[in-house]
């Protein structure tokens, strides 16, 4: 019987196979960030060394200020301490690190693919759940916890049992005005945030074959929001073009007779711009639709959850999304901080003025420079948006850039959890174009209606 792409890569990286199915998997690339300090503490406490500094890369992103590139400028002493610890650990253990002032600094899941560190067929781990992003290049990539980070630092390996295999087939083609973010939200709205728990996802089908690399990165990024630890797309000519290589990867795809534990088919043409209305990425509807009422929930348990979500979001249910007023907009994150995302938003903003504050944080410093080279920064500035440096910023607020309590933010990030953007903050997840439309109108509308 055939194998899936995931199984092939896992096989190639198996160092030890136990009778119970557990494998010791070799890690080609290990990325870390400021939040990995617990793992370095474990390493230090155990007196262990970093096995492969040449395979270990650090990215200063979660605590990076977006208004300065100087560590000394960070006002909060705790935040400054975390950044200093990250830089000190990188030096002490000899790992390459893209520090705050480095021209290659950026969010790990934007910068690493962009600089060609992530490549097809590799195994990649990082102490961050959105490591699934790197699967867009045909790598087996997943997020791990701090103990596992310590394990990889010390051994360059990780224990892994083969997860169940699930394929998402996107038929048809993407409708104009629909982005990869909308596909991701629509998928999660359909299968739920637990829909892919315990599974590795592979995305395939005509709509995926035609999807540009940056869209693939967005889609794989959101695999974790469907509960999957990884998402993967077989490498092809689009992958090669993105990496600027003539390489091909003949065996790196799932065999036609590979066995899938679960398959889901979606029709891409029927998906339009989406927005979340609640506090879970699955609580989402198409822009233009109305916010559901709790009473419309499919079962009693869901009705109770929806009622709680609506209450937190300051909504009653039944209102049209187009009537929901937003207080601010965030464009950025590892989901939608890439050049094509900035272009899509700038396209909407060109010649328009925003009516609510909008913060733009490019996903990497290189992306920022590329955007400036084509004048996107001027479009944002002329529209009235705040053009910043690169970092995780308002996606998670660990650097102190949060949304104030009760404020409603249209955001291109990936999590609308309670308190994710700050205590009491209300997040609506949308695509870059829809975020720009929200900034212009102050409401949740699709760019097409402008």
């Amino acid at each position, binding site marked *: 019987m055939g194998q899936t792409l995931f199984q092939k890569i896992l096989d190639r990286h198996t160092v030890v196979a136990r009778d119970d199915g557990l494998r010791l998997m070799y890690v080609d690339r290990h990325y870390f960030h400021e939040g990995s300090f617990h793992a370095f503490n474990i390493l230090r406490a155990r007196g262990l060394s970093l096995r492969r500094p040449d395979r270990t890369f650090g990215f200063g992103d979660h605590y990076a200020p977006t208004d300065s590139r100087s560590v000394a400028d960070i006002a909060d002493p705790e935040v400054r301490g975390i950044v200093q610890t990250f830089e000190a650990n990188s030096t002490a253990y000899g790992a390459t690190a893209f520090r705050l002032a480095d021209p290659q600094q950026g969010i790990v899941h934007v910068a690493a693919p962009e600089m060609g560190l992530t490549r097809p067929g590799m195994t990649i781990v990082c102490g961050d759940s959105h490591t699934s992003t790197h699967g867009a290049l045909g790598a087996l990539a997943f997020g791990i916890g*701090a*103990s596992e980070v310590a394990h990889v630092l010390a051994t360059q*390996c990780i224990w892994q049992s083969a997860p169940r295999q699930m394929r998402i087939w996107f038929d048809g083609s993407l409708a104009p005005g629909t982005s990869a973010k909308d596909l991701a939200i629509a998928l999660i709205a359909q299968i739920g945030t637990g829909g892919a*728990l315990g599974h590795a996802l592979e995305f395939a089908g005509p709509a995926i074959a035609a999807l540009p690399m940056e869209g693939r990165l967005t889609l794989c990024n959101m695999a974790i929001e469907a*509960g999957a630890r990884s998402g993967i797309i077989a490498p092809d000519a689009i992958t090669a073009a993105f990496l600027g290589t003539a390489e091909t990867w003949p065996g790196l795809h799932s065999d036609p007779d590979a066995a899938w534990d679960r398959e889901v088919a979606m029709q891409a043409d029927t998906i339009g711009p989406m927005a979340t209305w609640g506090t879970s990425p699955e609580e989402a509807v198409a822009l233009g639709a109305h916010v559901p009422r709790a009473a419309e929930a499919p079962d009693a348990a869901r009705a109770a959850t929806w009622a709680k979500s609506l209450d937190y979001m300051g909504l009653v249910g039944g209102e049209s999304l187009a009537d929901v007023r937003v207080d601010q907009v965030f464009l950025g994150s590892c989901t939608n901080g890439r050049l094509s995302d900035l272009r899509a938003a700038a396209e909407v903003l060109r010649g328009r003025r925003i009516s609510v504050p909008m913060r733009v944080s490019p996903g990497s410093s290189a992306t920022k420079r590329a955007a400036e080279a084509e004048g996107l920064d001027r479009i944002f500035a002329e529209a009235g948006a705040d053009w910043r440096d690169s970092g995780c910023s308002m996606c998670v607020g660990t650097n102190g850039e949060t949304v104030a309590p009760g404020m409603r933010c249209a955001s291109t990030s990936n999590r609308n959890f*309670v308190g994710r953007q700050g205590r009491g903050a209300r997040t609506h997840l949308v695509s870059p174009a829809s975020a720009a439309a929200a900034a212009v109108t102050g409401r949740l509308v699709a760019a097409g209606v402008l």
Partner: protein
Amino acid sequence: MDPFRAHTGLIAPFPADNVDTDQIIPARFLRKPRDADYPRWLFHDLRFAPDGTAVHDFVLHRPPYDRASILVAGKNFGVGSSREAAVYALLAGGIRCVVASGFGDIFFQNALKNGLVPVRLPEETVLALRAAPPGATATVELEAMVLTGPDGTAHAFAIPGFARDCLLRGVDEIGLTLTSEAEIAAYEARA
């Protein structure tokens, strides 16, 4: 890590599905060291009002649940961010075992690595345990992989063998993996 063999403790019901790790420990506390203040970050924004006063009707503030060590939740506990701090916070808050009908994959691994036992049981069983009267206890036996409820009924659960061995012996995986040094070096030589 201390070995985990068996644990008997008070049950606290936590009737929520899809509890994400941002709820278990909000992002702004991730920078905190694991010191004596750590218990405070557990479910912080559910347990404390914005002015810092305790939310008295939060389950872990109400006797007898304030002494609970077995948290009985719902579906998909620990989804979202990979932050192992969620496990650190639960342990700091005295929780040794979480019962749910499903777990976020990364949370499940993180829990096992720190001696917090994630017990996956069918939804009906979880709901029945959640309805146990205040003060009810349960016993978790790791070797047998059985949770005995307050009514004496034994419920079987599963923990992968390797992680279970590590927990029972109180050793972490790094030490065991380093015994495969020859295989790792051989892989590196041919890769």
